[in-house]
């Protein structure tokens, strides 16, 4: 492991190349070689390679991708489908969007190989509707791939047929949940489905369906090209390979850093030039707002599935939002809670009603109203939502609240004693701090 570099650009490697989104540029840099190789392989060998690589889902949950593929019952006579979850909406998450904008073909190539492996003849890329230029780039990449014979019937003489449909969503965070996404893709309200049956058995159109995140699928060509061992040479014991880490907030240079899993936040902050000058890290999310907050005590934990679980949080989407001491944690948490309330699909009681109440309680505290007993009430509300709601959205809504009260109870109390927020919101803006950040 020690011989692996700190940053390992694979998915990001072409992003700086002129017209990287076009087929000629992608192919000139080795693109679609993996597809040609894959088409000569036995389909089960591709699944085995992805299994062996240790690739775990990059959309947040970290379920082994190859195992997900192997759940597809190949004796089921119904058509099989691959659906790419490109509904990137988790607050803080901003990796799939630049990936699809700069390198749509690596996704398309991954889709073809993955579909071939699971014997799907139709694949869908469900992209959130609010990223128009990304949708253009993926639409164009798919069109180019058809024109080049990478898609369509009898791909490169293999006898294998595949169609890809690019599907624009219409504004619903919940569609990042895989069964809600399927509902959206079937032209319905994006409300999660009862499981079982699981999508692998009865997903899209009640047919066997694999749903994978963009980054997971985009990682497949590299595994085919370089091998499972190569992929497994990066990362940690149970969190293999590379991943894109997105740093945002009060660091000197927010941005995308592709590194082996297990890198620490201290290393990443170092690469990004440190926290903005004159300020210190106060709290951060390891993988989006649904992952419980951490603080500066956690700078040296490995950013992998196990390291984060050990700290009571989750690796999630490696969406690292960093906030310095100018930021009011109550304000931050209230705003996330408002987000969950806005995005709750409404299907189940704890999430629909619970977020409604949480926002009211938190807003009152932020205004300095209410009492300290409300903090315990908040925690009890969270307990009544967590694990009681229909899907993980409700669970996610409780993460920022429970974790922030765990680490910053005093700050909550300070709002009550101070009669409102003791901090100046202007100080946390990009331009409001007297010590403006350099770089970028």
């Amino acid at each position: 492991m020690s011989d692996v570099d700190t940053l390992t650009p694979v998915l990001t490697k072409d992003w700086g190349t002129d017209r990287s989104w076009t087929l000629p540029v992608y192919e000139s840099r080795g693109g679609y070689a993996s597809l040609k190789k894959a088409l000569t392989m036995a389909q089960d060998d591709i699944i085995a390679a992805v299994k062996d690589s240790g690739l775990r889902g990059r959309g947040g949950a970290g379920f082994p991708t190859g195992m997900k593929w192997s759940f597809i019952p190949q004796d089921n006579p119904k058509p099989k489908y691959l659906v790419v979850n490109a509904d990137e909406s988790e607050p803080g998450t901003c990796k799939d969007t630049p990936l699809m904008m700069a390198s749509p073909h690596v996704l398309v190539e991954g889709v073809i190989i993955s579909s071939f492996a699971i014997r799907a003849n139709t694949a869908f890329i469900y992209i959130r509707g609010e990223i128009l230029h990304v949708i253009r780039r993926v639409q164009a990449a798919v069109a180019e791939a058809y024109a080049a014979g990478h898609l369509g019937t009898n791909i490169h003489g293999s006898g294998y047929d595949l169609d890809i449909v690019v599907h624009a969503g219409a504004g619903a965070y919940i569609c990042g949940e895989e069964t809600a996404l399927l509902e959206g893709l079937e032209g319905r309200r994006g409300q999660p489905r009862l499981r079982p049956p699981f999508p692998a058995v009865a997903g899209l159109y009640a047919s066997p369906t694999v749903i994978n995140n963009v980054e997971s699928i985009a990682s497949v060509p590299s595994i085919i090209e370089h091998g499972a061992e190569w992929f497994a040479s990066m990362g940690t014991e149970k969190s293999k390979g590379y991943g894109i880490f997105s740093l945002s907030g009060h660091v000197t240079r927010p941005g995308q850093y592709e590194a082996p899993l297990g890198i620490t936040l201290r290393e990443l902050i170092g690469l990004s030039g440190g926290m903005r000058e004159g300020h210190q890290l106060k709290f951060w999310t390891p993988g989006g707002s649904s992952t419980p907050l951490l603080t500066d005590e956690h700078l040296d934990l490995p950013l992998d599935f196990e390291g984060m679980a050990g700290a009571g949080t989750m690796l999630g989407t490696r969406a690292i939002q960093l906030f310095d001491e100018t930021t009011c944690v109550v304000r931050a948490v209230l705003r996330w809670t408002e987000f969950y309330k806005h995005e709750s699909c409404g299907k189940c009681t704890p999430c629909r009603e619970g977020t409604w109440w949480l926002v009211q309680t938190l807003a009152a505290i932020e205004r300095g109203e209410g009492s300290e007993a409300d903090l315990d009430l908040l925690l009890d509300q969270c307990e009544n939502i967590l694990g009681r709601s229909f899907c993980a959205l409700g669970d996610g809504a409780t993460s920022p609240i429970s974790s922030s009260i765990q680490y910053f109870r005093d700050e909550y109390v300070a709002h009550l004693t101070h009669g409102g927020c003791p901090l100046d919101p202007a100080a946390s803006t990009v331009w409001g701090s007297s010590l403006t950040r350099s770089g970028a």
Partner: protein
Amino acid sequence: MTTTPEKAGTQGAVETVSVTIDGVQVDVPKDTLVIRAAEQIGVQIPRFCDHPLLAPAGACRQCLVEVPDAGNGRGFPKPQASCTLPVADGMVVNTQATSESADKAQQGVMEFLLINHPLDCPVCDKGGECPLQNQAMSNGRGESRFVGSGSGGVKRTFPKPINLSPQVLLDRERCIVCQRCTRFAEEIPGDPFIALVERGAQQQIGIAENAPFLSYFAGNTIQICPVGALTSESYRFRSRPFDLVSTPAVAEHDACGSAIRVDHRRGKVMRRLAGNDPEVNEEWITDKDRFAFTYATEPDRLTYPQVRDAGGALRPASWPEAFSVAARGLADARAAGGVGVLTGGRLTGEDAYAYSKFARVALGTNDIDFRARPHSAEEADFLAAHVVATGPDGPAGGSVTYGDLESAATVVLVGFEPEDEAGAIFLRLRKAALHSGTRVLSIAPFTTRGLSKMHGTLIPTAPGDEPGAISSLLGHAEHGVDATSVILVGERLATVPGAFSAVADLVAKSGARVAWVPRRAGDRGALETGCLPTLLPGGRPVADAQARVDAATAWGVDSLPEKAGRDGDAIVAALGAGELAGLVIGGVDPADTADPAATTAAIERARFVVALDVRASDVTRAADVVFPVAPVVDKAGTYVNWEGRPRPFEAVLGAPSSLPDLRVLAGIAEELGATLGFRTVAEVWSQMEDIGPWDGARATMTPVSAPTKDPLGDPAEGLLLSTWKQLLDQGTMQAGDKHLAATARPAVAKVGRTVYDALGPTVTLTGERGSVTLPAEPVDDMVDGVVWVPSNSSGLGLLTDLAPPGARLTISGGDA
């Protein structure tokens, strides 16, 4: 039951699994949901979205339980929704009764449900029978923490209420979005005209602009709503549940025999609800069954007997006087040529029996017919040979049941549109098509919405061509019928010569089973009790001397009339010709009969008419003696549904002066010197039991062949009339509820696309009896040369205004 197809497969032993709930071990069938397994040991887990007849949703999360062992030695880390969790062998479940964590989870969910609930129970219709209210008391916290939290909780509010339809109202702030109503609408009748709209805390039930919730079954959503969010215009704010007296009853509007519950307060029916009869209507009824009950309290309700005075005007009379006048008049008429008996579809089996016996014993005639609609001798033959005295438990073997519709591989509909004519059958067939793979075939001129919802296939057939279409099913490559099939024959088939014969032939050759589905609640009972010129009670053929002796013996009379009687049309003709002098008529609307003008004229012409009815009508106004009789709500009785299943019920209201037909007939008979031997419903029932069904030879059917050439004129001219009554129309038993009436489908003429394109949005149809002008609606698969118009949704009804079914019409665009 040898014809039961393999897929039924329910006869085999059901695999069971053993689970432990609250420390009690219980064996339940595999795949049982935990929430229902718990019911087996008497533990009621609170729930809202769960409904046993709807697919599991897991939405409300009220039914959370602790599962320390899923059956594999490992438990679930978090509480589980028991309404979506199937049992597994060895599973251990702890409900709120034994688990603190389950109890806390349930209290937490209940608290969430109540934060946005208005708590307006004192003014809410549901208060007192509200699952939310009840379960908040049993499984909720005593005090809400919402109002005391933060700066005091602010509830979501909506302006209220909104009309989902002219009948169904929604108070959105009361709604807990359990989705029972939307799931019902989509899953059960297939009418997804209500849907969840908006999102999150703003999520609510809604309709699209200009597209109200017009489902024949909409009222069921009100009943299954676990809060007071859905109410009906008819009942809203009318009474409190604890002031109501509930009585189980049977719906009187069709032949389904649907179980209902009638709620009354101080002698007045306030509302009706679906009963729960898994073998019949499950828990659903049509809106007609639910809302159409105010006909009995219309101002034209008859309340005292009347006799015609010397001056020719009807005047009130005492009961004894009326009996005496009626008896005298009937005796004279009997002597002057005879008396016919016409009965309508509202009769209970007991009342029908009384008419049947009255005709034979008191009037000495077989001139009796219950078919107050177009009918035929072929139909009577068919009923005698194939229908009468069959039933689920009948001596002639198991008749077709609701359950059989689900296990049948194929169900053929002919002369029958279930959604309009028998709502419970429609729902059962849709369920069969969706969940059991039953294939529904309809011999009809176009694909109705109802047929689409049953995922059925049309066998396109013009009126009159049914015999050929029926015969073609034998050995048909695509639509073949065999012993796993069921044929449902509607009463309308009587208008097509040869059709019943073709059905009988198909049944004989294919081994398929057949059932006859009349439209009216009383028809099957009238058949069973002998309200036909050719049948005595219990299916005894008049033509069979042994059967006559059998009935005469039971009735304690020397003999019964031997001569086959006149059927309804013949009675009308004989009255018109002066061959018959008198008429006893009960519950007949001349507009329903084959020739309304002839029927009306016959009543006018008759020397002496005794009318028994609930409400004043042209018939009672023309009668010489009028007896008020009890509407079904005032009396006990029995309907026999299309399956042949007796559906007994008790009186809902005790109205001493409201007498059933049978009591009136007994009174007249006594004055005639012919004792019927009964004065009460119970006495009639006991007589019917004593007589029982005929165990001698069944009547056989003489086949009628279909006419070989079109008897109705040159096919190149005009259009053939296809028609039936829509569920909601101008029927007299729907009077008095304008909200219900507003949900009826409008009168339109359905025509083929080419006719529509040629003639435009309004058409005028002209037939032998007149013209009607209606909006036209194009139907893509309408058989060429056919137009469909609802029978009784406009004017005086088609039989009066236009032409009989199957007649040839001319059509023109616009107003004539």
